[in-house]
């Protein structure tokens, strides 16, 4: 068991995991089907009459109409997914469900990163402070107190056993 647990074995396990993950990530699964593309595009757009629901989720007539429009664009095969999203957005401004990465909207992307960095820095600082506090070594007097307490506890236990 000790051999199995050795550091080289762990390195082997890590390499195996990375290798398998790389294989799974990079293997070619072929292009999306037409329906797959329609679904992927409709997940990025909000239905204009459905209080924030995506075209993919909504069963409203407006969503149905836009889904059909997307299906027509996909069947025509001339535009990429991004171009189709742009076409729909031109007709229905503000329908893209993903906020932009420029202007004020970029805040929605920046703030989580700031929060993550702040959280990690805070965690680091707290651990550092605690580590410094833990570095205080116990004196001989402290050890004497603990030993006396343990001795006292053992005496009490012995008495109880009697």
């Amino acid at each position, binding site marked *: 068991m000790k051999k199995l647990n050795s550091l080289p074995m762990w390195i082997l396990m890590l390499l195996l*995991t990375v290798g398998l993950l790389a294989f799974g990530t990079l293997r070619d699964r072929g292009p999306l089907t037409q329906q797959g593309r329609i679904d992927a595009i409709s997940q990025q757009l909000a239905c204009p009459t459905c209080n924030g629901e995506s075209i993919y989720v909504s069963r409203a007539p407006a969503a149905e109409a836009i889904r059909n429009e997307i299906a027509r664009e996909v069947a025509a095969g001339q535009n990429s997914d991004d171009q189709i999203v742009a076409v729909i957005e031109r007709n229905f401004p503000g329908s893209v469900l*993903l906020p932009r990465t420029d202007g004020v909207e970029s805040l929605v992307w920046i703030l989580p990163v700031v929060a993550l960095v702040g959280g990690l820095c805070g965690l680091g600082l707290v651990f550092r402070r605690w580590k410094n506090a833990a570095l205080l070594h116990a004196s001989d007097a402290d050890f004497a107190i603990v030993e006396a307490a343990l001795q006292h506890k053992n005496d009490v236990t012995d008495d109880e056993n009697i």
Partner: protein
Amino acid sequence: MFSAETLDVAVNQGLAGPLGRAALLVGIIASVFGAVASIYTARESLREEEARTARLIPRFAALALLAAVAAMTAMEYAMITRDFSLKYVQDHGSRSTPALYNFTAVWSALEGSILLWVLALALSCAVVVWRYRKKLSDPLIAWAMAVMFIVLAFFFLLSFAPANPFGVGAAGVTDGPGPNPLLQNHILVLFHPPILYLGYVGFTIPFAFAIAALVTGRVGEGWLIETRRWTLCAWGLLTFGIILGGWWSYEVLGWSGVWAWDPVENASFLPWLTGTAYIHSVLVQERRGMLRVWNLSLLLATFSLTILGTFLTRSGVLNSVHAFSESDIGKYLIIFFGVIVAVSLWLIAWRGDSLRSPGSIDSPISREGAFLANNVLFALFAFVVLLGTVFPLVIEALQNRQIVVGEPFFDQLSTPIGIALLAMMSIAPVLPWRKASEEVLRQRLFWPAWCGIGTLAVSLLVGADGLAALLTFTLGGFASGAALRQLVLATRRQGWRGLVGRANGGMVVHIGVILIAVALAASNSYTRSQELSLKLNTPAEFGGHVFELKGFENEKTDRLTAVKAIVQVDGGKSYAPAITKFVQMGNNIGTPSVKSSWRYDLYLTLEPPVKSESGEARIKVFIKPLVMWMWIGGGMMAVGTLLALFPGRRRRPTDAVSARVDTGKAIDA
């Protein structure tokens, strides 16, 4: 006693309205007097005097519960007897609604939902009073009761004034549209809202004790231990309510998903995230006396977020298909939210000195270190969900334009956080308290790590791809291995008792969470769909299955017209996706039909327009892997929470509680 005229009005308008209003008024009085009695009891007890008012607290709690039950009964009576003298019944009742949905119509809209909240809160208040009936003179308990009565009084007031379901409607109305069509085609409407509300309301109990601890200055671990099971109960109910909501969405909405990051869904998820962080970090305080301010803050944030969520979904400020209609209660809720936050922060600042924790964490590679890291991740997750939910309001305020922050944003940010949480779940259960050596880690993580690699290999063999999904499967296997290791060790040591208690029940909950995470990753990443134009008795193939339209079934009643397409799958059982048009509402509601198996679900929806006369139907077929495991995972989370509520093995005081700390000097030398 009553004049003939009064009786005539009561008979003509129905008794429910006056009775309901009277019950709400009694509830307000009972909860206000309950709060006063509790505060007086607490003050007297601090002076070490026996307060006679302590005996009044249970009476006020019972009266408030009675009032809440009477108000709810009156509302149900009005709905069931179709008392169209009430505006609420005019708006949400109907003569043609079936009995079950008529019963649930009471909480299908804003005013009724607040009434349900009142009932759940009055019930919680009464249960807490009963539990501590012999300790009501204890200032901590008395202050906790005062807080609960104040919150109850607020909700009674909301229900009595701005969200009164007993308001009188226009004269001469004899029928109404009934509840929202989506709320009248699945039995889960009977369970999902009440359970979710019990979860929300349940967090009032630990919140009340936290405030009481701050007021009385008893900020040690006593109040935590008192509220441990209440918190777990509230968390369990909220979890179960959210899972039932996902199931409902899957069975009813027809887009084959369980979670759409809708603001109302997010409103329930936010307190769940902070509540989950709390039930982990509270262990550090119980064991090591640390993180007092952090735990208090998490608890106060959890309760505040339930109020904020209620504001966001009931004030009309956010667009959501789930949201209740616009109303006046928003301003009251936001003021209440502000008061809660201000009072909580002031109390924490006031007790700042006594909240300083005496201990310190010896090493980041320890159980408490892992809990802290997990808390950072949960807090970040909650921040992302809150930011995404309220960001459209920010843009509207700054630039006077409307945007929608939807599923793609939440998916992109929640996926890495979820994967990091799975990684924590893989490692944390094997970590000892205080400090872990490299050797211990290598030994304890060995088999769980192989579980992860094995799961990855199997996933690749069955054709999985994509980094996020593969990482989820790998870490899911790893985390399952770590949880199972703990359960195996515990049951070997203690037999069946190794399954109960917080730590071991928690591991069952972990396995449930892992199943849900894996099922979500699989169903989101590998769903395939196809729209099939089916003609009568002409088979069509998709995804290795044969679908054949066998006919149509039409249903026409006063309430609705429905058409079902009968589709035979693989020459076997037939399924019947439907489209229903509710007469009073006018819109089409799709009802999916699902063939479930442990590997994948076949999810069929009927797409409009339906040409039943020409024998044609457009059926959309979704093939969704592993969906059933989501419900099994939800069930395991519920079972795990129940197991965690039972007391585990008591640790003897002489048992070692943690790994030895290297102080540079052997203690037994």
